[in-house]
């Protein structure tokens, strides 16, 4: 886990490569329980919604972005995660998740790192973008 004093503006978190598989999305939907059939697990419903195939639910994509941050800063480090879903995310394709530190500040006794976050497709498509704030420990 990084210390606040060791982080600089422009530092990168990741990139890490992830794939949301058919099986992973199905498992997520088993917990989330969207109405069925749905465009996340059913190809025909997805096509009727104008997609080329089933897509990854937005809240699952957000959970993947959160994972990038908790792997880096700890399980309870996230203070704010604010994402915009820019393009549908297909199953079974490589996705690159990364973040860039854009601000460092101390606020209410916390050491906060703000970052821009991105989920990119194999062709550089920006599937998800947004901002996050994480709290980091201090050496002091």
């Amino acid at each position: 886990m990084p210390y606040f004093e060791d982080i600089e503006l422009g530092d990168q978190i990741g990139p890490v490569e992830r794939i949301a598989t058919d099986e992973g999305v199905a498992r997520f939907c088993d917990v989330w329980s969207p109405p069925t059939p749905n465009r996340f697990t059913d190809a025909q419903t997805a096509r009727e919604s104008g997609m080329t195939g089933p897509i990854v639910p937005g809240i699952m994509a957000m959970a993947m972005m959160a994972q990038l941050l908790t792997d880096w800063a700890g399980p309870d480090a996230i203070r704010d995660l604010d994402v915009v879903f820019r393009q549908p995310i297909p199953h079974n394709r490589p996705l690159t998740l990364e973040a860039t530190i854009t601000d460092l500040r101390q606020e209410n006794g916390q050491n906060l790192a703000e970052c821009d976050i991105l989920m990119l497709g194999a062709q550089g498509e920006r599937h998800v973008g947004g901002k996050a704030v994480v709290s980091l420990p201090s050496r002091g």
Partner: protein
Amino acid sequence: MTMELSYDRTLHGKEHRAGPFEITADMIAAVNASLGEQGAAFSSDADAKEQGFRGMIAPPTLCSIFVREVQLPDVGLDFGRTQMHAGQRVQPIAPIYAGDRLTASSHLKDVYAKTGRSGTMVFVVWETTFRNQDGDVVAEVQESFARRE
């Protein structure tokens, strides 16, 4: 120029509640399996306690899956036909533990228009506060839905 939007403004200030939702270890394990999540604090009581928690915790966005359980009314927006999930914001405030029972309270936060290169879109934002069985706020979640012209 500000666009005058037609929707049910009486919804502002009204709370819509749902729950309780029990956070089980099995639920956390299922979400972990779907994501390939291997974080120790999300995996077992023992590992979580080693990290200073009183037990296994849920990944920070897990409560988002319960937002859809709140029966939200139609805002009656007279704009566009197709709606998409445009964005999501989660502000974790306290750890959510396996065994917690959460309640959700949602209200209409904002309805606003934005015009860009692809035209005008109207965003409807709902905000949901999650509390645990002790009444402590554990997370705030915002969901944005966009409608195109």
